[in-house]
Every structure is written in C-alpha cells, then in structure tokens.
C-alpha cells in the first residue's frame, strides 16, 4: 500500500469532515477509558458478571468505532490527495 502524498489544498468541507472524524476517534477512546474505571461496582455475583460482560461488549463496540474512525481519516486523506493531484494534473 502506497502512502498518499501530502495534500496542500483542500475544500473546507473536507477539512471539517476530517475534524469530525478525529473528534469521533477521541470521543470513543475517552469512553473506553471511562468504562475501564466503571468496573469496580461490588454487587451480586451473576449480576456483576452480566454488568462486566455488557461493559466489555460496549468497550469492544467503542473500540471498533474508534478504529473505523481512524481508518476513515486515512481514507479521507487518500481521497483528498488523489483529488488534488487530479486537479493539478488537469490544470497543466
């Protein structure tokens, strides 16, 4: 897989889309950290196990969201650089 060249000029919508996706990454990672601090409840055995299992599932879901958001940022970069290169090529 080739690393896309750095983009120099982007439409504002692309800039805002990237900012949104990076925000999603940060949020999901924060939630995962918060959930890690929420496992210390001491209540009945099976209920506690259910609670932990539910939190694990949610953590996995958050991690998936975060990973996909990071991937989306990379794909956005790839697209943006390709679009810019195309525009430059067309301008010659």
């Amino acid at each position, binding site marked *: 897989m080739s690393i896309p060249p750095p983009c120099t000029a982007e439409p504002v919508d692309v800039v805002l889309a990237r900012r949104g996706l990076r925000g999603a990454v940060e949020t999901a990672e924060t939630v995962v950290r918060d959930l890690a601090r929420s496992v210390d409840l*001491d209540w009945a055995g099976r209920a506690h196990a259910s609670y932990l299992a539910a939190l694990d599932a949610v953590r996995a879901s958050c991690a998936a969201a975060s990973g996909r958001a990071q991937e989306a940022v990379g794909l956005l970069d790839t697209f943006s650089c390709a679009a810019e290169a*195309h525009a430059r090529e067309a301008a010659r």
Partner: protein
Amino acid sequence: MSARGPGGPGAPGDAAPVVVVRGGTEPSAVDTARMRERVGVLRAAADALDAAADAGGLARVRLAAVDAADYRALAPVPRVEGLSELAPWTPWPPHVAHARQRALDAADDVAAHARAAAHDLRSVGDRMDQAVRVYDDAELAAQGAVREIRSVARALGLPLTPSGVPRPLPLAPVLDVVAGGVLATLVAALRGEGLDVRRLVSSTAADHAPLVSWLSRWMGLASPGSGGPWRARGVGDAASALSRLDLEGRAARYLPDPVTRRITTPDGVALPVAADADSALALVDALYDTERLPGSVIAVQRVDKGPDAPPAWVVAIPGTQLGQDRTVFSMTSNLALMDADPERRAGADSVKAVLAAMQDAGVGPGEDVVLVGHSQGGMVAATVAASTVGTYAVRHVVTAGAPVAGHALPPGVAGTHVETQGEAISDLDGAENPATPARVTVTGTVDASAGGTSLVPHGVAHHRAVLAAAADVGDRGLDEHLADVETLLAGTPDDVRLYEARLVPRPEPDDRCLAPAPARLPTLPAPPGSPTWSAGP
C-alpha cells in the same frame, strides 16, 4: 432484596418482571448511591457516543458534497492572457471516485458503530437504574407501609403487637379480600363489564395467603390431627380434612397403587435437555404438551459424569392435570400432598408414580438427584426429597408455582422456589416459604394478560421469566443455588426417559372372580290346607 430485570426465555410479553429474592446464605449488599453514580457515567458516555455518531454522519454529508470543481478552484494554475483564471474542470477518474466512496463508507460505519455503542451503553445504564429504583422503592415502600399501618392502628385504637404491628381482627383476611378486589370485580360485573376472574385473582394477590391461613384454621377443625382440640389448625389440617372426604371418589374407583410404565418419546418431539434450573423447568413445561404426549407423564434424565464418578439424575414433574383420564396428578393428590401428615403426603399417587419412575430408571442410592416440579409437581419434589432420605441422594429441589411453605426439606437438600404474584396456587400454603441458607424463593410480578389465554400467571413460562429476571439482576444466594444446580447437572446428558403414570380402575363386580353360589335345593310342594300351629304340651 428486590430487583427488576428483563424478560427471560419464553417470557410472556415485553414487560420486565419485578422480582424479590428471599433466603440464601447472605443478603445482597448494594450501594445504590454508587450505582446511581455509575449510571450517570454510563449515560454521559452514551451521550458522547451519540455525539460521535453525529460527527461521523456530518462528516459523511460534508464529504458527499465535495466534487471535482471544489478542487479545481484550489489548484494553482499559471495565468495566461485570454484564458480563464480557473483550471480546466474534468470529472474525477475512477480511482479518485473510488477513494471518495471508501471514505464515505467508512464515515457511515463510524456513525453506525458509535450509535450502536451508545445504545448498548444506555441499555446497561437503564437496567442498572431500574434495579436501583426497585431497591430504593422496596425500602421506602416498606418503611412507608409500616408507618401508615401504625398511624391508622393508633387512630382506630387497635391493639399493637410489641413490634408495633396491629393485631389482626378475627375476620381481617376475609375483609381484606373483599375490599381488595371482590367488591371492585362485582361492581364491574354489575356494570355489564363481565366477570373478570383474572382481575379478581390478581387484585387480591396480597391477601391470598392470609385468607388461606384463616380458612384453614376453621376447616382444619374437622381434622383429628394430633395435639388436642385446642391446637391451632393450619393448611395441612384443612387439607387432611378435605382429603378424608375423598371428593373425587378415588378410593372407591381405583386400586391403591397407580401403574407407571416407560413410554417411547414420540417421533418429532424434541425434549429440552436439563442443564440448569431454567432448562429443567423447560423440560417440565414440555410435559404439558398433551397434543404430542399422552399426559400424566414424568421425565427422568441421566447425566453421565465420566468413568470415575457416579451419574446424576434430574426428574421433571408436572402439575395438576384436571381432565386427564386416570391421571396421578389429580386433586386427590393435591390434598394428600398438602396434608400435615408426612406419611399421607408420601402416599400421594403422584409421589408413588415418581418413585416408580426413579426406580425403573435405575437411580442409585449414592447418585445425586435434582427434582424439578411445577405446581403439584413442586410439592411432589419436596415430598420425595423428604421421604427418600437414605434411599436416594436428592440434592436440590427446584419448584415453580408450588405451595411448599409447609414442606420441610431434609438437611443437605437445597430448595430453589419460584413464585409469581397473583397466580394464587403458590399462596395455597398460606405462608411464606422459609428463608434460610438452604432455601431461596424468588417471587415476581408479571403481566398475566401478556401470557396469552391464561387466567393467572401460573404457567411455567411465567416462572421462567421471573427466574431469568432475578438471575439477571443477581442475588448472592440465588446465584449460589443456580450454580449448584448447574454443577449437579454438568456432564453428558442421556436421552430423556418418559414415564406415563395412571390410576388403575377397580374391577367391576362382573369381572371379579366370585366363589360359586351354593346349589339350590328343590322346592317341595306345600301340603294342602293352611298351616296350623299348636302349642306343645
């Protein structure tokens, strides 16, 4: 403790039963304030994830709005006299369009993942919040009720017990039932709304046990019992008195012992494998399928524990089956099982049938046995456990909708009992089950109307829903009991063996083998004239 949980397997309706668990090794300790704090954390996290989902969705919208012309405006181009200032515009080639599509798809995924995580997180928080509310509500309700009762009693000048509870009036249970639901039901019927039996039973649920206890006190006077006429009579005495009436004519119509025979499982019938309390109850429920099974059927399942360990057994016992011809699960058996005399309980037809099935299946004296019963089957299970000490190693009795408060379990036998509010049947013992380390009772309130055509929530499915809700929310004692059943039934299960048990009719007089009648002597002709008598000398 009190708790609320979601509906379980086969749960009728969507409403989550509210459950109360009593008994077990120790009470559950729950710091509700701390749970509330955690609920707040989870909900805030869910809100954040919703915001992240919105951000992913917005990113997608923005990206979808970008086209080649937006980049054309940004591309530097040498200024040439007479030409446009803008670079020439050409549509994106496939690789650029494809790259954008991949980015769009990824943004979609981000939104979907974040939304799903937010939903899951909110669901966890909601369930915790429900549990907290029920914990708190139960405590507040109990405190409020005691305060109210005391104040009303003082205002009326009623005598109070040393603990501050008013002493009951002689007719209090009857008055409670009348005020609690009978009047309202009758008024509704008189208005032309029909006689709603379901409403009558459920609206008087809290008064069933006291009413049964009250009635038994009087009906029990007809039972000889023991301890003298001044002894307070209970449910067992009332059942004994009714049992002696033999209202079904069982003694006159049938031989003393029922016949129990093994039957093959009909083709196409897949019986649940009992691996824990819930699936064992599912097996009991399957025995009610009288379209595919003959009815009056008991199930016995062997669990192989490996070459070096004795097997374990689970016996599934259904409840009363009125309308079944010659069934052992009759009202006569019910009365015998509720009798105060343990010997009369052990003599119930349904108990004899279960013991015959266990013997035929080959249950050994040192092999662990779990007895699972619904309704009458629960009483049978408790009775078999009590009457076979030294014969069978019954380890655990699981009952659903069974009046077993008066059934003591021997040492070493654990009891897990499930009851639903308003079903009336499990209130027939007139008392609450003993709450001890060895005996745990889960009582739940479910919506009977969501259960289909049943008048009251007495079906096995209702009890399974209650048990699932209690297990989901959790109670240390209940957890231990459920784990005990799982451990006992862990292994490789054999096929379920079915036994059909029927009463045997007494032979008709014509069928009996009678001794030959004495030969008749020929009648001699009478002498002419009237007979005359003369005194002797």
